[in-house]
């Protein structure tokens, strides 16, 4: 697809939970994508679509049930726990709830400093010095904030602490799991700007998960849309917003509020019905129960992710626009395990 070797390749990752007895939930089913160096890939979907589970599966917290996660050429799903721990400094994560992701009884400065402790090779004084530097980088005043505890800081400040902690180990990949969805709009802007800045300053690649398309559009180079454990569309940011191919993507875009007096109200062409239970997903295309274009074929055959334009992948039998092109582009791009 590209001559660039991706930093992260996710291949057929599946996460299955057992929920008592023999009932299983396929939270993530055969998701595959690549994340290139220096790129921000946005991942959107409603709550319960499995995007956080996917993020944790990539982090190996816990390991996925099936599939491979290849970071910089190395499959981290088969690593022993010791070598995995050693490699962890290269991929870090920022969690949704900024306050809950910090140890409540630790001083925040110590939380930042401690992430270097496991890497080893640095003296305590050196670690503290680095932690204070990093606090300055993320816009906190070490004099004022180093010795505070999480509950003494605002949500936005706690999220800055989390970012500092993640950056301490000098990662290549930063996975942000809804980092701004529990913050006020005004604080959210700060955090997004900060993430964009540290991404370019530190040459990071980023997987940015959110349910808010406007946020995702603001920060991403490419966007992947997830529904009920599967990817339904993956395309460059500009393409997916100007010409969404999956009916679900279009519904999501329509739901975004547009501020301003003369803008149409969000929610026209809304999704009907509820998200089906992942314990009992619909046959064929998982979106068919809410899709205005669903036909018999959607019930029978599960659509595979295929390319409809350069870099634009969609998993739909009847995408919203058919791009004129040679027929061979309509082949399934990746084999996916049946579940």
């Amino acid at each position: 697809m590209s001559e660039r070797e991706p930093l992260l390749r996710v291949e057929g990752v599946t996460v299955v939970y057992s929920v008592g007895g023999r009932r299983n939930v396929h939270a993530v089913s055969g998701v595959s994508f690549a994340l290139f160096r220096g790129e921000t890939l946005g991942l959107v979907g409603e709550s319960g679509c499995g995007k956080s589970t996917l993020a944790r599966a990539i982090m190996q917290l816990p390991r996925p049930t099936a599939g491979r996660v290849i970071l910089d050429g190395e499959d981290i799903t088969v690593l022993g726990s010791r070598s995995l721990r050693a490699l962890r400094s290269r991929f870090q994560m920022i969690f949704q709830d900024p306050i809950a992701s910090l140890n409540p009884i630790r001083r925040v400065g110590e939380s930042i400093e401690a992430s270097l402790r496991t890497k080893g090779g640095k003296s305590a004084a050196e670690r503290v010095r680095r932690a204070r530097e990093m606090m300055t980088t993320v816009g906190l005043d070490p004099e004022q904030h180093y010795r505070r505890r999480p509950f003494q800081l605002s949500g936005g400040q706690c999220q800055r602490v989390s970012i500092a902690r993640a950056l301490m180990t000098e990662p290549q990949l930063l996975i942000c799991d809804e980092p701004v969805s529990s913050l006020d709009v005004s604080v959210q802007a700060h955090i997004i700007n900060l993430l964009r800045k540290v991404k370019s300053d530190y040459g990071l690649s980023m997987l940015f998960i959110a349910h808010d398309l406007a946020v995702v559009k603001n920060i991403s180079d490419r966007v992947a849309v997830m529904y009920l454990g599967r990817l339904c569309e993956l395309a460059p940011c500009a393409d997916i917003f100007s010409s969404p191919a999956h009916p679900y993507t279009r519904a999501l875009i329509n739901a975004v509020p547009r501020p301003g007096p003369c803008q149409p109200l969000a929610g026209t062409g809304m999704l009907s019905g509820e998200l089906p239970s992942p314990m009992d997903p619909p046959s064929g295309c998982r979106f068919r129960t809410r899709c205005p274009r669903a036909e018999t074929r959607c019930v029978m055959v599960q659509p595979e992710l295929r390319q409809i334009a350069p870099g634009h992948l969609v998993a739909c039998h009847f995408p919203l626009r058919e791009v004129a092109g040679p027929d061979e582009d309509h082949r399934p791009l990746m084999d996916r395990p049946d579940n």
Partner: protein
Amino acid sequence: MVKKRGITFWLSVAWIALVMTCAVGAGFLPLPAPDQIDWACLATSPDGVHLLGTDNVGRDIAARLFFGARVSLTVGVIAPCIGLVFGSLLGVAAGFYRGWPERVIVGAIDVFLAVPRLVFLLVAMFVFGSGLPAITLALGLLCVPSFARMARANTIRFAGREFVLAARATGADDVAIVLREILPNALMPMVAYALLVMGYVIVAEGGLGFLGLSVPAPAPSWGGMIAEGREVLERAPHVSMIPAAAMFLTVLSVNLIGDGLRGWMDDRESQL
């Protein structure tokens, strides 16, 4: 918002401090030995010679009270500590690893809890003898199950929190996660609970003393003193009442301090 601790909290602290001072300083105070019998004064009321009077065989109640405080405090402090340490170890192991370690530990605790406590104590006294170390150990073992359950519940609660995941994401191993992330958080409510257990253990020791199962006579213990005063209860009620009051105030103080600390911790929790 930090709630101001009331006067009762500080009175309780003062009382415990007083009891501790007396227990530690009992040997240095100008008091008769706790087993020295003054045949001239049998069950006398408090006066200039005997500060708190004498018991039915003429021993100085103040001296016996102070030396008896050593027993109550030793048992009251060490037994909950035994419970806390062993309970935490078992509970954290069960809550952190789940699976078969949890099933074994929880099963063992359930079996242990099914044994009547008094029967356990009687058997323990029979096996270990009735010295202070034996009593402390036996009461300490009785505390282990409740601490273990609490530790397990707290560990499960914290092990799923995002800050533990975050620590794992930075590459921390199990030992570091338990010691640095989970234990400090799980321990806070358990320490407050230990104070509550302390009151319970002091009363339990008193009960054993009353039954003559605590430290062997003539060494003083509060429970034993109450029992000895029974014979002269009508004539000289202070012989029983003074140790009873001391025990009552001590247990009450310990509980009030525990409540105060718990309130303080709840305030902190609610700020999270």
